[in-house]
Structure formats: C-alpha cells, structure tokens
C-alpha cells in the first residue's frame, strides 16, 4: 500500500483535530457533560448561516466567529432552560440544539445559491478536500485546516496545563473546588467555550459527527484503563491519534477488499475509535469485562460497574 502525500496531510489534520477534541473530552466525560459536544456541534449550523448572511462572504474567519458565538450561546441557553425552566439537563439540551439545528436548516435552504454550505458538509465534513486548501505561514506550506487546528490544540493544551489543578478538582468534586476558592462556574463556562471553539475549528475538516466521536470515545476508553487523570489524558490522546491513522488507512484499504474504491475517512475514524473502545471495554486491566469476570471467579471483591444514577424521583403524581 502506497501512501500519497495527500494522505499524509489528511492523517495529520485528522490527528490534530482528534487531539484537540480528546484533550477536552476527558473533562466532559468526567463531568458527565458528554452530550454537550453533541449539542454544540449540531447547534453551530445557524451561526454559520447567519455569519454568511450578514457578511455575504464565505470568509473562514467570520464563519468561525459566528459559529463560536452560537456555540457559547447554546451552552448558555441550555443552562437557562435547565435552571429557569427546571427542565432536566438532557431534555434542555435536546430542546435547544434541535431548535437551533432546525433554524440553521431553514436559513441554509434560503441562503443564496452561491453559498455552498450544505448541511451534509457540516455533518460529515470534507476531510478529503481539506489538504487542497494550502496556505503559507511562517515559511511553511501546509493546509489551512492544519494551521487552525494546530493553533486550537496549542490553546487547549495551554489552558489545560495552566489550569490543570483547577480542572482536576472541579471535575471530580465541584463542592471541594468551591471551598478551595476555585470558581466552579467559571471553569464550567471556560470548558464550554473551549469545546465550542474546538468544535467549530474541527468540524469544517472532520464533520460534527467525528467531533463528537473524538470528544467522547477516546476519553471514555481511557477512563476504563486507568484511575489517574494524567494517565487518562495521555491515553486518550494516544487513542485519538491511533484512530486517526488507522481510520484513514482503513478508509482507503478496507473497501477495496469488497471491490469498492474507498470510503469516508471521518466515518471510518469514528468506526475505528468505536472498535478501540470495545477493546478497552473487554480487555481493560481492572475495569474490563474479562478482568472483572476472572476476579469474580476468584471470589475477589469485584470493582462493580457503578449503578446508574437515577436521581431523585420527579415530584409528580400519577
């Protein structure tokens, strides 16, 4: 199998996006906010459309701003519906993101023909075309998407490194964080903003579905492999990188076995990440199904899979 230079760029872009997402995903998974990525990535659609309609240009920067603003607004709206309306968080997300998505669809249908922003491109991205848009920066010729994602990765890494302790404590014990003088609410909004920026930067290249996959799946798999946050973050980054490489290779090889040409790289990356998760679920050293089954046979106290948190029953009588 020969890898074309373009394949190299595709893998690099996918890997950068995967790293950006997986880094933040750890905190989303730990804070039980996984679906926030899903909500934001669906909801940016109207932001893109409005940015286009206002500026009448498809400049990446205005679109980026528009989508990022809507991304943060989405988080805010969800918070409002949740706290003012006393709607449970899942339903609040569902209400907000589907509404925004519907609004975006209508705006796009009504946008002038010249605007080639079709909703499909938002959902599964155009990773195959991303390397073609090359720019010169710092004397280096690289795809624009790679530069953008490298910038976002640097931003995310910086934030996580600088605020590692704060993120750590406020993820596991918001009450403790508050008593230690960490503003848990501020951390929440910082995380949401970073997720919004990352989502917007990534989805043009890899599509919103892969953004969700990279936000959640590597972090969830890593969560099963270790008990330590630092290790978990490292593992999630490795899993994301492996998904990117194997995903692209699978996309251009697997279909040929069945007589097809190739398939969508983003879709294949999500699939590979899913497979890696299943491996982690089965073979993880302590949390894995096999480990727990064997521990059970030895009669050890098994680390039990935690029972789902059902929460207090709703105050409603039948």
């Amino acid at each position, binding site marked *: 199998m020969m890898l074309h230079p373009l394949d190299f760029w595709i893998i690099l872009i996918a890997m950068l996006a995967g790293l950006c997402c997986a880094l933040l995903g750890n905190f989303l*998974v730990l804070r*039980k*906010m*996984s*679906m926030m*990525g*899903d909500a934001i990535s*669906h909801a940016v659609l109207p932001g893109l459309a409005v940015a286009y*309609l206002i500026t009448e240009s498809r400049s990446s920067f205005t679109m980026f701003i528009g989508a990022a603003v809507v991304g943060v607004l989405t988080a805010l709206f969800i918070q409002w519906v949740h706290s003012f*309306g006393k*709607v*449970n968080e*899942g*339903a609040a997300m*569902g*209400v907000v993101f*589907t*509404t925004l*998505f*519907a*609004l975006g*669809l*209508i705006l796009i*249908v*009504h946008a*002038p023909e010249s605007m080639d922003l079709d*909703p*499909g491109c938002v*959902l599964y991205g155009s990773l195959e075309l991303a390397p073609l848009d090359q720019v010169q920066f710092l004397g280096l010729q690289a795809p624009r998407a790679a530069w953008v994602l490298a910038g976002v990765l640097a931003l995310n890494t910086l934030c996580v490194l600088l605020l590692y302790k704060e993120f750590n404590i406020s993820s596991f014990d918001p009450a403790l964080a508050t008593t230690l003088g960490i503003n848990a609410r501020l951390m929440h909004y910082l995380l949401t903003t970073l997720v919004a920026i990352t989502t917007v930067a990534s989805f043009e290249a890899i599509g919103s*579905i*892969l953004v*969700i*996959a990279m936000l*959640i*799946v590597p972090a*969830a798999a890593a969560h099963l492999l270790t008990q330590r946050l630092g290790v978990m973050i490292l593992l999630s980054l490795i899993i994301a990188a492996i998904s990117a490489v194997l995903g692209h290779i699978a996309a251009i090889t697997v279909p040929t076995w*069945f007589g097809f*040409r*190739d*398939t*969508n790289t983003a*879709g*294949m*990356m*999500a*699939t590979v990440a*899913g497979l890696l*998760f299943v491996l982690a*679920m089965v073979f993880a050293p302590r*949390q894995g199904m096999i480990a727990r089954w064997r521990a059970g046979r030895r009669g050890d106290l098994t680390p039990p*899979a*935690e029972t*789902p*948190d*059902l929460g207090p*029953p709703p*105050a*409603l*009588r*039948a």
Partner: protein
Amino acid sequence: MNMLQQIWTQVPTWDQFLAVLLLRDYNTRLVVFSTTLLGLAAGIIGTFLLLRKRSLMGDALSHATLPGIAGAFIVMVLAGGDGKWLPGLLTGAAVFGSLGVLAVVIIRSQTRLKDDAAMGIVLSVFFGIGVALLALVQQMPQGSAAGLETFIYGKTASMVWDDFLLIAGVAMATAVACGLLYKEMTLLCFDEGFAAAQGWPITRLDVAMLALVTAVTVIGLQAVGLILIIALLIIPPAAARFWTENLGRMILISALIGGISGWLGSSLSALLPRMPAGAVIVLVAATLFGISMLLGSTRGVLVRALAHWQLTRTVRRQHLLRAMYEAIEAQTDHAFPELARTLTTGSTGGSTKGSTAAAGRTPGTGEHDFEHVPISFKHLMGERSWSAHLLRRLLNDAQSRRLITRVGAARSAASSDHGKESYRLTWAGLTEATRIVRNHRLWELYLVTHADIAPSHVDRDADQIEHVLSPELVTRLEQTLAER
C-alpha cells in the same frame, strides 16, 4: 436582506391559505395528517422518556439508524432487488436503532461510564459507520443513493398513501400500548426500585417502552429526518411539563402540542416557499415550548416568580409584625403567656381560628393595652437587618392591610420626620403577630427539648419555619410539648 424580500413577495394568497387549511389538496391532506399523527405519537411516548430522564436516548437511537438504512440498501442491491424499497430500509433502521439502544445498555451496565458517555459513544460511532457505508453506497453502480440522504433531513413532501398508513398504524399502536401499560409504565417512571420489588418485569417493560420509541423514530425518519425526530420526542413533553403535575394530563397535553406542531408546521411549510417541513415543525414546537415555559400554569417561569414574590412579601410582613410584638414585649415587660391567654380563650388550640374568634369577641377590651404601645421607626430599624427603604415599604403595606396604624398621623403626615414617627399594632395586627410569635417560640422550644439544639442556635431555624407551620402542625407541637 434579499432573503426577506424573497419570502415577502411569495407570501401565499388567501385562497392558497384556505386551500391548505381546509385540506383541499390531496397531497397536503396526506402530509398534514401524517405529521399530526407523528407528533401525537411522539408526544405520548416522549413523556415517558422525559420522566425517565432518558430524553437523549432518542438522540442516540435515531443516529444509530443510519448504518441500518445504508446497510439495508447495500444488502437489497446485492440481493438483486430495488435498493430503495421502503419497508426494507425501515427494517434496517429499526434493527440498528435497537442495536444502538442495546449498546447503550451494555456500556452502562458493564463499565463505570454514565448514561451521557454511553449515549455519546453509540451515537457518534454508529453514525460514523453509517457515513462510511453511505460513501460506499454512492460508488455502487446501481446506487443513485441520493434518496438515502433524505432520511437525515426528512422529505415530507414526498409522502405517499402507504407512508400515511404506516405512520397511522404506528401512532395507533403507540397510543394503545401506552393506554394498556399506563399503570406499569407510570410505576417504572417514578419508582423503578418499587416496581421491581412489587414483582413487575421491569426489564421487559423497559424494552417495550424503548421498542415504541424505536418504532416512532423509524417512522419519523422519512417525515422529519433523523435529527429532527429527536425534537418531536423531547420538546412536546418538556413543554407539557410546565402545565401540569398530573401524568395523565401531561400525556394528553404533550400529545396535543406534538399534534399541533405537526399540523401547523406542515401547513406552514406547504404555504411558504422553500420551507423544509421538518424544520418548520420543530420551530413551531419550539415556539410552543417557549410559550409554555413562560406562561405554564404550574411550573411556568412567571407563575413561579409570582409565587416566590408573594411568599417573600408574606415572610417580610410577618417579620415586621413579630419585630413589633417583641418590641412591645420588651417595653411593657409583660410575659408572653398572659397575652396568649387573653387572645386564645384558654383553649389548647392556639390556632388562627381560635385567635380570630377571640379577636371578634373582645376587641380592645384586653386587660393590658398592648395594642396601644407605640413603637418608633428607629427602634424597628434596630430589630432586624433591613434597610430604611424596605422597612418603610413594609410599614406602608401593613398599614394598608390595617395591621398597624401610625401614631399621631395628623401631626406628622409629611415625610420630613424621617425615623421619628411611631406605629402601633391594630387588634388584627396584634392577633396575627401573636400567632406568629407563638409559632416561632413553639418551634424554638421544640428544637431545644426534642432536637437537643443549643438555645442560642434555635432562633435562626425558627425564623424560617414560623411562616409555614400549618395549624395541624401547631396543634401537634403543642401536644408534644405538653407531654414533656
């Protein structure tokens, strides 16, 4: 801005409007009926999902159907059939939707990951597989697979009679099933543990519920697409929740909101140019949600704000009365029991009723003229940590309720004598103040004697509870304390 002009110039004429509203056109009639029924069915089953806090399960499920659709297409083409045979595609969708639900359940039970992560994993991985399969479909020689994409965004206008029958059938089945399993599902929603302890097959009930959700999702794929069907499962129940605390009524309202959204949305999309029906339906539902959230009669934002405002006012007024009472007590050096005896006619029932009865019989003839002791504004300021502005507002409010009167009102009508004016309790005010002080002290006594809380710490607790003690509770407190 040319977009707005475009819409404006294409506003339908009155005749077109009537034609759609009265369902004169066969195709419109079909679409409107279908979407209305879909909204009804989704509203019903969505209610149970919402109460089980599983709203986003519909999200995971609907995304998981994509590989089923693409896979079914491939299988049917390879088998030499027509790739777009609808029952086949929907069967594929249902199979993979169920697999998605199963995967969520397995991840949740076999790992320490929570619901949200399990759903996120299933949703993104399944959809990724679907996208990869769709890309393959597009390369198939027979594969003008463009039609498959309509499942993502829906294509309401292309509905035919068979689709209507399918939707009507599933909607009917959903309604009947929910009717038959109403009691069991209710139990499952509110107290799963109790249901299990009572011997109900909760796993099977859960499966039945999710099967209904799957069925509604799959029939909704064609009508509004796999992303917006989520909205129909979530928004109507969430909106209905603002109007009632009763499950039966909530289901009805939710079905109604879903039905109206489907009907209005598809009508509007038929009237206006280039309006995708699925999106319009969702926006109508979202509007109804917004209205419900604001105006809802039980949990709406306005109703709750009003209730909160009223409670705050009552609490503050009662604080004022108690402060005045305690000030009088301090000045006249009269012990509490004596006063209580004057007011409560010696019976054990120190309840409101007793006090008012006493008030009716002996107005102003009390042995001690508590009501005639004036309390100065300045003194009241020292009683609690309230601002002069707030206190003045409270005093005016109490005055208008005839609970207090201003002493020497004629002389100091002008507001120039800041802090110098005095007030005294009227008979009604004294009665109310006595009741509150009594509640306060009963609770303090109870905390000291029965909860072993230090006397110096009980005032704060009693300060909050004195406003909400019911007459029954007061009677019980009296009995409990009398037994000591």
